[in-house]
């Protein structure tokens, strides 16, 4: 099977949230309640157990010729639809003690709901803060990459619903080429701050759902140096071996040389 991916091109996103709605409908995810965040028009705030697509409302500077309001007016908007990154080296998948989280034949990372027992160790292993335990249900949830739809030869619900092709679904290699072409296109039009967010140089080793954003990726809450927590295993277990050795040797020293008699 070929590895599939998402290219989320934020320069095409109009913030309509059709992807959020399509995702909720197809996957029958519970509602998040009715609360205003006061953060632009982003009342969804973040990805989570009941939010697998999240449209971010980034307030940018007015740029002459590229839209936005006049200086001093409410700022211009950038939108970007966030999603599980489906990492090449996925922290959640490595950490899962039950084997509930697996790599599918499409290269996506999938939480099997019939296996997950809700230990929430994946939650502290995701460098992007995506997977979360649903406290009412007890299990961990995140984007399934529409595994069911892909199995049936269909594209994920969010990509299907996106009216501007900001969310593009396809073969990962094709999408990477397409992103480079798009970058050149944008540059030719004078947009020189567009960039691709795909941390291939970090221990995450690249992501299957990558982004084309304008400006610093941090304004989209994308960490500049995400790390898969398995990199801490070696120093951790080394230190544990040292601790265990000290525990045994210390106890032996105390009991074999310290004398067994009571004081006096």
């Amino acid at each position: 099977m070929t590895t599939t991916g998402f290219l989320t091109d934020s320069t095409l996103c109009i913030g309509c949230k059709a992807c959020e709605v399509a995702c909720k409908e197809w996957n029958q995810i519970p509602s998040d309640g009715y609360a205003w965040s006061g953060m632009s028009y982003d009342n969804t705030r973040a990805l989570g157990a009941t939010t697998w697509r999240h449209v971010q409302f980034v307030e940018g500077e007015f740029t002459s010729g590229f839209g936005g309001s006049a200086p001093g007016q409410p700022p211009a908007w950038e939108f970007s639809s966030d999603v599980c990154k489906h990492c090449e080296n996925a922290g959640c998948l490595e950490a899962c003690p039950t084997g509930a989280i697996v790599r599918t034949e499409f290269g996506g990372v999938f939480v099997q709901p019939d296996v997950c027992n809700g230990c929430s160790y994946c939650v502290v292993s995701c460098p992007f803060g995506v997977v979360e335990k649903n406290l009412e249900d007890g299990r961990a949830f995140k984007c399934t990459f529409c595994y069911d739809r892909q199995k049936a030869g269909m594209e994920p619900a969010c990509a299907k619903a996106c009216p501007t092709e900001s969310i593009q679904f396809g073969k990962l290699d094709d999408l990477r080429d397409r992103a480079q072409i798009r970058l050149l296109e944008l540059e030719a039009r004078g947009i020189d701050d567009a960039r691709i967010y795909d941390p291939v140089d970090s221990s995450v080793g690249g992501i299957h759902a990558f982004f084309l954003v304008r400006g610093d990726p941090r304004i989209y809450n994308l960490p500049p140096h995400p790390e898969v927590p398995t990199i801490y295993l070696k120093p951790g277990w080394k230190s544990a071996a040292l601790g265990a050795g000290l525990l045994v040797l210390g106890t032996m020293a105390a009991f074999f040389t310290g004398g067994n008699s009571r004081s006096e």
Partner: protein
Amino acid sequence: MKTDDEKKPRLPDAASEERLLALRDEAARSGVAAGPGIRPAGAPFPQVEIGNAARLDYYRLPVLKNPQWTWEVPVYFFVGGAAGAAAVIAAVAGWAGAEKSLVRDARKIAAAGALLSPPLLIADLGRPSRFYNMLRVFKPQSVMSMGAWTLAFFAPSSVATLVFELRQDLLPRFLRRALPAVTGSMAAATGTVMATYTGVLVGATVVPAWNQNVKILPIHFAASGLGSAVGMLELMGHDDNQPLLALGISAALVECAIGAAIERSANPADEPLKRGSSGWVVRMGGILSGPIAFLLRAGSSVAGRKTGRRLRRAAAVCSVAGSLLTRAGWVAAGNASSQDNRIPLGLPDQRPAPRR
């Protein structure tokens, strides 16, 4: 700058909803809604500082998720750590020919911890009825999996050791010495992992306060487990046993060194270990199980017999309480750390730490 109050979700109120309905009605009837709309609290949106080009985050929302661990987890760290260290003490004291009562009491602590640990861990699960899935796979790259397997060997072996000790008549004569020795050694071997692996468990995560201390945590937790096991034995009446005193002093000295290292650290990831409520719990745990336990134990070795035993009992209480606070403090520090977006985003430390 937004205050925490402004970050709270705004809920639509009855008046604004009523007004919206009236507007909709008006529009449906006449095709035009002429009157003014509503102005929700905090309007107009957007309200982020205009012209602040230095802004490099997303409304200061956390990048990482909160660990979502319940109170059972730090309690398990404490119980499992003490039980693991107690199993090591029981085995070594047994080999060294120490008093039988000491060996037996250490085995009791190990067995009690072994019996308490699984319920604590199962209660933390979102789906407790599926606890057995923990042994569905053997996965070295998952510390949680390694811990589950370790407990799966530690629990039966330490309980069996105590049962063989208390009911030797259940065993055929030729096994009365050999079988407890075998199960006791197994409990001690897995006990060393029980006392240390929880440090790797929290260290090998994305939470900065934890992973920046991945080298310290297993040794810290081993010393904490040893201190609490020694303390429990002292409280069970072994308060004039010299090897235990030496062990208690060693554990307290390690805790002093680790506490000093944390206090002197300039790593911004260590902030939750020193500031806010989590910082106070970590500090309290460190002071009780480090300097205070050390001074009381050191004092007991120069004091007279009666005062010495009193001092050791006081030290024992401090070690046990300090160990529990240490585990709770580190988990709380991880919760605070996960909610701070500055380290994952590599932001300069230009603003006060978020209130916890």
